[in-house]
């Protein structure tokens, strides 16, 4: 089959659209990762190192945050993985609206191009991924790029939400009940419910921002009756739930990998789905004020949302117990996808536990906006999410490419990456306890964190080595990998009952499922 660019651009096949999302989001990941190298070089010693202009640093940091979240994690999870896996997992030939699907990937690419324009326009945005006014409405930086990147990717996400919810509701294979869905399918549904409810709020917030800056409105200008906190409330009303848009699918795919490589049922499936995933969805909209603990909002609001924020530990705790319980009496094979999935358990545990002091309003009064915060959210979201995505890429690699990757290269890449992230993000939290504020171009007033800063910069090099090996393992597999069988892992899930790679239309005949079929029916007679 000859490669045709036109066929890829105008494709409506969910698997190809998934791969397009993967390529785009990995490009965003690489560019944003490069920014972190620049930042870590700048911060390896006090004083100006790579640049003497703090604005350069601010632009790197803006791009790193905005591209990692909007360009990499959300599209990789709800674009690539959802597209590739959901129709296969539910036994469908494609999504409900294939052309809408194509439109959403085009919008995503437009958003990526706009984000990358940061590096060529003369006045790049320097407003961090949060874009707080009045700074964002006063800066000489180009806030419009931020607004339109968010709007394009948000619109793409809304289209995806409608598409996938319709697909899962109406296009499951005959006989597939709601309690027979893969954890990943459930988590994608939950993530898209959150997106559909909350994305419009972010759209409103960034649109008002652009109106204030370019059209002279006064939504956030106190001198003319506006209020700066309106933006912060609107922004976090979306952007905290957005954390769960990332969290739920990455835990969902982690569940699938854990069950496959432990050849075991998901422990307490219904508690994990209805209590865990459902609980997170229910609580997601009632916790945003924990981002505003130091913003002078009323005490009752801060303490009230402290309680709701702490209560997130209940559904998340159920999910953790379910993940661990999936290992109990399993048959664990330590292939590369499983290494990443197990590492998610570890990094997510640390990330979750270091979230507690940030939820405790009083402790947050010291920790807020220090290095403790990026340390925490890199563990809980950035690293855990990225590990789950990498694990999923290895997991689906035989299915997507029809070839096996090299296990040695996979292991080597994992070991360096895993060591590296701990070398960077544990010291980051310690620096935060010393009071080192985040988003600092320089730290000469904090001589006590100089050692930690140098240490973190060295750790970044270890991550870089891991990333290069990982990238090489993917290329290596494409060129030299052995041909992959239909089901190399011995999984019970439907996506492994089709050839690798699956043909257009996926299934020769749509499977009909019995009541005792289950994607995780390992070790018992009923499973097929």
């Amino acid at each position, binding site marked *: 089959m000859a490669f045709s660019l036109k066929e890829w651009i105008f494709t409506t096949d969910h698997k190809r659209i998934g791969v397009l999302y993967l390529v785009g989001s990995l490009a965003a990941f690489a560019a944003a990762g490069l920014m972190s190298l620049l930042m870590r070089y700048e911060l390896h010693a006090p004083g100006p190192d790579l640049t003497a202009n703090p604005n350069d640093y601010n632009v790197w940091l803006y791009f790193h945050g905005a591209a990692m979240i909007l360009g990499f994690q959300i599209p990789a999870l709800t674009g690539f993985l959802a597209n590739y896996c959901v129709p296969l997992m539910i036994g469908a030939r494609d999504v409900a609206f294939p052309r809408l699907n194509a439109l959403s990937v085009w919008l995503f690419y437009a958003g990526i191009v706009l984000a990358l324009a940061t590096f060529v326009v003369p006045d790049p945005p320097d407003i961090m991924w949060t874009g707080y006014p009045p700074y964002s409405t006063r800066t000489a930086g180009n806030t419009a790029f931020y607004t339109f990147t968010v709007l394009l990717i948000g619109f793409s996400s809304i289209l995806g939400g409608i598409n996938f919810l319709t697909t899962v509701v109406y296009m499951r294979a005959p006989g597939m009940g709601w309690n027979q869905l893969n954890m990943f399918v459930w988590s994608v549904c939950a993530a898209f419910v959150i997106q559909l409810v909350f994305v419009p709020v972010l759209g409103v917030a960034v649109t008002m921002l652009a109106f204030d800056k370019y059209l002279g409105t006064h939504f956030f200008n106190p001198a003319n009756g506006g209020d700066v906190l309106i933006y912060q409330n609107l922004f976090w009303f979306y952007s905290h739930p957005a954390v769960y848009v990332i969290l739920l699918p990455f835990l969902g795919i982690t569940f699938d990998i854990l069950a496959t490589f432990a050849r075991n049922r998901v*422990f307490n499936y219904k508690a994990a789905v209805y209590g865990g995933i459902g609980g997170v969805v229910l609580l997601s909209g009632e916790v945003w004020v924990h981002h505003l603990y130091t913003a002078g909002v009323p005490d009752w609001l801060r303490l009230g949302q402290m309680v709701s924020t702490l209560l997130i530990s209940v559904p998340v705790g159920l999910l953790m117990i379910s993940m661990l319980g999936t290992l109990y*009496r399993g048959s664990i094979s330590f292939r590369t996808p499983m290494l990443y999935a197990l590492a998610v358990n570890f990094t997510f545990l640390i990330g979750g536990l270091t979230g507690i002091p940030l939820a405790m309003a009083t402790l947050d009064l*010291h920790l807020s906006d220090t290095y403790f915060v990026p340390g925490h959210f890199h563990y809980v979201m950035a690293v855990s999410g990225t590990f789950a995505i990498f694990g999923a890429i290895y997991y689906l690699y035989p299915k997507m490419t029809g070839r096996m990757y090299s296990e040695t290269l996979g292991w080597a890449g994992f070991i360096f990456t895993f060591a590296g992230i701990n070398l960077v993000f544990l010291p980051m939290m310690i620096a935060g306890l010393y009071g080192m504020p985040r988003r600092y171009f320089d730290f000469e007033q904090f001589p006590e964190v100089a050692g930690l800063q140098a240490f973190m910069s060295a750790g970044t090099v270890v991550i870089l080595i891991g990333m290069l090996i990982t990238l090489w393992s993917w290329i290596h597999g494409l060129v030299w990998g052995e041909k992959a069988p239909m089901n190399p892992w011995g999984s019970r899930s439907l996506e492994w009952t089709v050839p690798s790679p699956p043909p257009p239309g996926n299934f020769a005949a749509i499977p009909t499922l019995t009541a005792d079929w289950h994607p995780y029916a390992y070790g018992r007679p009923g499973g097929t």
Partner: protein
Amino acid sequence: MKGYAKGILFAWAVPLAAAEPPDPARAWDALWRVYLVDAGVIFVVFAALGAWFMLRYRRRAPDEQGSAPELSRLAAVGWALVPAFAFMADDFYLAAKTWQAWNVYREVPVERLEVKLEAALWRWEFTYPNGVKSTNELRVPAGKPVLLRMTSLDVVHSYFLPDFRVKEDSMPGRVTYLWFYPRQPGEHLAVCAEFCGMMHSKMMGKVIVLPPEEFAAWYEGEARRLAAAPPKPEA
């Protein structure tokens, strides 16, 4: 380190609000120890279980399958409700401890020095009750609580005193407050903790805690100077 370890072990026994007189920094440190114990226990339980499962249940034959039985209905409900209530209990315990410390942070002692703080790109402007002004450097007497009423002249900033464990944003169009308790003479760093543009990382100042009599001499001297040469009203 030894005292620290002891602090962790016995943190549960130390009542938070017992620090007399109330001091946000001390309340913070005590609450942090409560958190460390709590999170430490959870971490050890989960990490140990995970490590044990990985070791105990590794695959021994290529075609081996997992052998965990399906949970009975009762076991499934129990495994949902018991952990849920355990986590909830822990949440409410931490929330209650946090609320105690929160009251220390938000209830300002009546006997205090009150200073107005206006944040601006990229400096801190202080105005004392008698009209004395200073930029970036805040001189205060030892042994007296200090209340800052804060606002901003331009963008959002955040006045952060790491040594006193306090920070609160200063915003245009809003007034916020924080208080801290300087006990001993000395110098403390003040930094901006909310991103405010190019010189954000250089927006810093000092809190200079002086012995009370030294502070009084400075304070009255500045007031006399102000009276001798009052600032010209702006045209």
